[in-house]
């Protein structure tokens, strides 16, 4: 789309949205936020780029790869406790990080992948 307002806004908003999505992801640990909300924000950051430029240029990897990686990360966060002989998905805490955070990152990537897949499919249909 050739709109100067959109181009300028997207250039500024894209990185800010992406940073904010990471902030929401990590903040979700104790306060409102988390992987789902963060993933949606990240997806909107890339969607803006998709509207501004060609679809292919907006994300270095395919959305499918994000979904697959996200799901596998979420599974592995549950498996960590099984390795230690505790029930599946028992949270394991270290200083600053935990398996819960790993799960949330998995959710973040999966949500981002699903939304972007939808957006790209719609964008391709239009053009």
């Amino acid at each position, binding site marked *: 789309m050739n709109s100067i307002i959109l181009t300028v806004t997207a250039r500024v908003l894209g990185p800010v949205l992406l940073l904010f999505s990471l902030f929401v992801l990590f903040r979700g640990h104790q306060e409102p936020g988390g992987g789902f909300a963060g993933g949606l924000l990240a997806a909107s950051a890339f969607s803006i780029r998709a509207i501004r430029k060609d679809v292919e240029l907006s994300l270095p990897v*395919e959305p*499918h*790869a994000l*979904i*697959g*990686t996200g*799901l*596998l990360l979420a*599974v592995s966060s549950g*498996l960590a*406790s*099984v390795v230690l*002989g*505790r*029930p*599946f*998905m*028992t*949270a394991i805490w270290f200083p600053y990080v935990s398996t819960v955070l790993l799960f949330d990152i998995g959710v973040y990537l999966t949500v981002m992948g699903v939304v972007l897949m939808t957006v790209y499919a719609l964008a391709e249909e239009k053009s």
Partner: protein
Amino acid sequence: MNGFVVLPLLIPLVSAASSILFWRRRMIQRWLGLSSSFLLLGSGLLLLYTIREHGIQAMQVGGWPAPFGITLVADLFTGIMVTLAGLIGSAVAVYSVANIDARRETFGFHPLLQVLLMGVSGAFLTGDIFNLYVWFEVMLIASFVLLGLGGERKQLEGGFKYVTLNLVSSALFLAGVGLLYGAAGTLNMADLAVKLRNANEPALVTALAMIFLTAFGIKAAVFPLFFWLPASYHTPPVAISAVFAGLLTKVGVYAIIRVFTLVFVQDVAYTHGLILGISALTMITGVLGAAAQNDFRRILSFHIVSQIGYMTMGLGLYTSIALAGSVFYIVHHIIVKTNLFLISGIVERRTGSFQLKQMGGLYHASPLLALLFLIPAFSLAGIPPLSGFFAKFILIRAGLENEEYAIVAVALMVGLLTLFSMTKIWAEAFWKPAPNEFGPRPVHRTMWAPAVALAVLTICIGFGAGPVYELSEQTARQLMDPTAYIQAVLGVSR
């Protein structure tokens, strides 16, 4: 402490997630699907072995204690069902190599099949009734996509009916779960069993039971809620309809049996009497519906409905031996029905049609195929010494012991009519001369192998009926007396 219980969920999940990573690589997806299906079968057998040796296995997911967290629990019934899910998954994964076209594979057939198997296993394993709803949804969403995959006109038409009625069922199920939570304050099935045993208002509990019976009844395709099944099962490719026919309605039957042996046993005379009546009507309408059909897979679809009646008949009689009959019947039915669908696919390759009128001459063209059809067909009708005979025998004996002569008469008559339907397929497809010349397409050996394997299994169950019956009887005893189940979940006997 054991991690086995969660394996049947993790294996398909990891396979599906990895398949998504390799979205454009069909061969990798195919191998991932195949290996995961066989691993699922292995984990089911491992689970079954562990349960037989060490009793009921339970796992409190996340380490949250029983009535608050989600429990995964596996008794013998669960073990058997998970093993069967793995078996059917493996058979269909092999069959799909030649049966599913490249286009459907690119649109994710393999990961979808794995998600379906995960949903089915989850429904068998969960000990929490809301979680059961969640697994039902996982299974249904995967099945919606599988049914519509390819986007042919008749597929979408069948899929529409399937989706609509199943969503109605899900809504009812969810409403029932909400009301149950309001009445009992818990959703853990073992905890529910304890809390509802001495409920103040048995009438309220019975009303709740009816909501669940309706919801699960739609999924299990019992009379009068079965329309969606014959309208949709014959539309997708054979591999997909085979896995649907083998597993999906049986998840509904599993849910009915689980809930009506564990939770809703306050007014057995009413609820189980009603189930018995429904069973009789299900058997009759199914078999009569089949008699009027001329499409190979539609006949088989109507027979699924009729067979579901036998499975719930054991529950309706509600004795140990009758439930053993139900379990035996489920084992037999899943194997035989999947096998018949797989064979219908081979027949279609040979004759180019699913319509009986267009078929013919198969007995001369392929005696092996004729034999392969006869084994499961006779088994379905209950001819000794195949598995179906023993399944029906146990149920009918249980019926006679309970002096429920009406249902026994229905069961016997429906067996006879089943034989009529099978003879009809035999006469049209195999016996009569071929109506038109059709250059048969080659049938790849990956389509033969699972069909032959399942037929051999039917014969094995027939000749080895003793051990299978023993296992079914142990299962039935666990179902009739849920003390051990409750103790495994809640940790203490109450």
